[in-house]
C-alpha cells in the first residue's frame, strides 16, 4: 500500500498538526493530541469527543461551530491517554461542566474513566454518554456491550447543537442520550485497511467474502458471507437495523447515513443509497435528511455502513441548526 507518510510512527501526531492547520486559527493544540476551539463562550456546557486516530475525519475532525468544542486524540487506532483527555477537558471547560461523548470501546472507556477521575480532583464536573449504535455487536438487551460506529456522526452533530442550547450539563446529557438512543447502525466489511506504521492488513477476508457486522477497527465480523450485489446488501442492512429494538415504521422520519469505511467509492454509496431509500419509502418511512460519504473510516478499508436516526420533536430542531467542521458541515435547514 502506497501511503504518503514521513516517519510512519509519527503519523498520528503529524495528522493532528495538519488538522490544526486545516482549521486555520479556529482550533489550537493545547498539548500534544489535545485540541480545542479557540473561542468557546463562557456560558457554554462543553462537549468533548475523542478516540484513536486513523479513522479520519472522526472524531477530532468533528470539532467546530455547532459541533464538538474539543477532542482528545490517541495514536493510530488507540484510545487517547488520560493526561491528553484531561488537558482537552481543561481547555474546553468554562466552569459549566464537560460532556464526554465517545465510542464504546474498552480502551476509550478506561482512559476516559481515569481522566474523569483526574478532572473531578481538579473540580471539573464531567458526565459521559457512550455511543453504542452497532446492532451487530451485541443483542439489544446488552447495549453496553455494543460498539460505537458510524452513527456517531449524526449523534455528535445533534450533541453539538444541543451543547449550544443546553442550560446545564444534566440537560445536555438528556438531549444527547435521546440522540444516541434513537440511532442504529450496521457495517459490512469487504477488504481490510492497514496499519500505517507496519503496512500490514488489520484482518484477512477472502476475495469473494464480506464481513457482516465488522467494526471500524477491522475487528473480525460476526458473520462472513458470500459477496453480493449492492441491492442485496442494502436489503440485508435495512433488515438488520429495522429488526432491532428501536421501532421505526410507517409515519416515522429518519436521518439516513450511508458511510464508506475508506476506499469504497461514492459511486457504490450512491447505488446503495438508491435501494435504501426505495426500501424505506416502501415501508412508509420518510427521509428527513441524508448523509453520505467516507466519514467514519479505517484507512483504505473497503466496506460500507448504514445508520438510521429516528427523529422526534426534540431532535429535529437540533438537526436543523447549522454547523461546520472538517467532517460534517450543514448550512441550515
Amino acid at each position: 500500500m502506497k501511503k504518503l507518510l514521513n516517519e510512519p510512527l509519527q503519523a498520528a501526531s503529524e495528522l493532528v498538526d495538519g488538522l490544526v492547520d486545516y482549521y486555520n486559527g479556529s482550533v489550537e493544540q493545547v498539548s500534544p493530541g489535545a485540541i480545542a476551539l479557540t473561542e468557546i463562550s463562557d456560558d457554554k456546557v462543553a462537549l468533548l469527543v475523542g478516540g484513536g486516530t486513523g479513522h479520519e475525519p472522526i472524531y477530532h475532525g468533528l470539532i467546530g461551530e455547532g459541533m464538538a468544542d474539543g477532542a482528545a486524540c490517541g495514536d493510530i487506532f488507540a484510545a487517547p491517554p488520560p493526561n491528553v483527555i484531561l488537558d482537552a477537558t481543561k481547555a474546553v471547560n468554562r466552569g459549566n461542566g464537560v460532556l464526554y461523548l465517545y465510542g464504546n470501546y474498552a480502551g476509550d472507556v478506561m482512559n476516559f474513566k481515569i481522566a474523569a477521575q483526574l478532572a473531578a480532583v481538579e473540580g471539573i464536573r464531567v458526565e459521559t454518554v457512550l455511543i453504542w449504535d452497532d446492532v451487530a455487536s451485541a443483542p439489544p438487551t446488552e447495549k453496553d456491550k455494543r460498539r460505537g460506529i458510524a452513527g456517531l456522526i449524526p449523534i455528535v452533530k445533534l450533541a453539538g447543537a444541543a451543547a449550544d442550547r443546553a442550560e446545564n450539563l444534566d440537560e445536555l446529557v438528556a438531549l444527547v442520550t435521546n440522540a444516541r438512543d434513537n440511532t442504529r447502525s450496521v457495517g459490512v466489511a469487504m477488504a481490510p485497511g492497514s496499519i500505517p506504521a507496519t503496512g500490514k492488513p488489520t484482518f484477512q477476508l477472502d476475495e469473494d467474502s464480506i464481513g457482516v457486522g465488522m467494526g471500524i477497527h477491522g475487528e473480525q465480523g460476526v458473520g462472513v458471507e458470500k459477496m453480493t450485489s449492492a441491492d442485496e446488501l442494502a436489503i440485508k442492512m435495512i433488515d438488520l437495523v429495522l429488526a432491532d429494538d428501536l421501532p421505526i415504521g410507517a409515519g416515522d422520519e429518519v436521518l439516513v447515513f450511508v458511510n464508506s469505511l475508506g476506499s469504497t467509492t461514492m459511486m457504490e454509496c450512491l447505488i446503495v443509497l438508491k435501494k435504501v431509500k426505495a426500501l424505506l419509502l416502501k415501508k412508509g418511512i420518510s427521509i428527513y435528511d441524508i448523509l453520505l460519504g467516507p466519514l467514519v473510516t479505517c484507512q483504505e478499508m473497503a466496506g460500507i455502513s448504514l445508520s438510521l436516526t429516528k427523529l422526534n420533536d426534540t431532535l429535529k430542531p437540533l438537526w436543523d441548526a447549522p454547523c461546520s467542521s472538517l467532517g460534517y458541515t450543514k448550512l441550515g435547514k
Partner: protein
Amino acid sequence: MSNLTLTPTNVKEMLLKVADVIIESEEKLSQADRDLGDGDHGLGMQRGFTAAKAQLEVLEPKTVSEVFTTTGMTLMASMGGASGAVMGMLFQSGGTALGANDSLDADGLCTFLKGACDGVTNLGGAKPGDKTMVDALVSARNKAEGNDCKSISEACQAAASGANEGMEATKAMIATMGRAKTLGEKSIGYPDPGALSVSIIFKTMSDYAS
C-alpha cells in the same frame, strides 16, 4: 545463588531489562494482536516501554514504589489504548500498594501483585476466564502467594511461572472483553496479547532476580 531482596536501584535495573525485552518483542506481540484484534498491541507496548526506559534512566529512586509508579504513569501517558490503561494501572496500583518500602522481598512482590490485580480489575472489569491480561496477572499472584517464597528470586520465579500458565490458559478461552469479543469461538487457540505481555514482563523480572 538467590537474592533475598532487591534495592530500589536493582528494581530500576530490572524494569529497564523488562523494557528492553518488551521493545524487542514488538513483532511477536503485534502478531498475537493481529490474530485477535487490530494488531497494534506490540507497537503500543514498544512506545510505552521506550518512554518508560527514558524516565527510568534518569530516576534516582529512594523507594521501590516510585520505580513502579514512574513506570505505570509513563506507560499510561505514552501508550493510550486499552493496553496503556491496564498496563499503566498494573504498575501504578501495584507500586502504590508498596508504600515507602526501600527494598522488595518476596512479601513485597505479593503486595505488588495484589495491588496490581485490584487496580486492573476495578478499572476494566475483567475477571479470570475472560481471556485478558487479568488471567496472567491473577495466576501470577496466586502462584506467588501460594508458594511461601523465601526470597525475591523464588517469588519472581513463581510469579513468572504463574503468569505463563495464565497466558497459556487464555488459548482455550473465548474472548468476552475488548475488541476480540466479537470473534466469539474464533478466538479459541490464540493467547491474549495482553496476557502474553504480562508473561514476558514476569519472565524477565524472574531472569533478573535470579
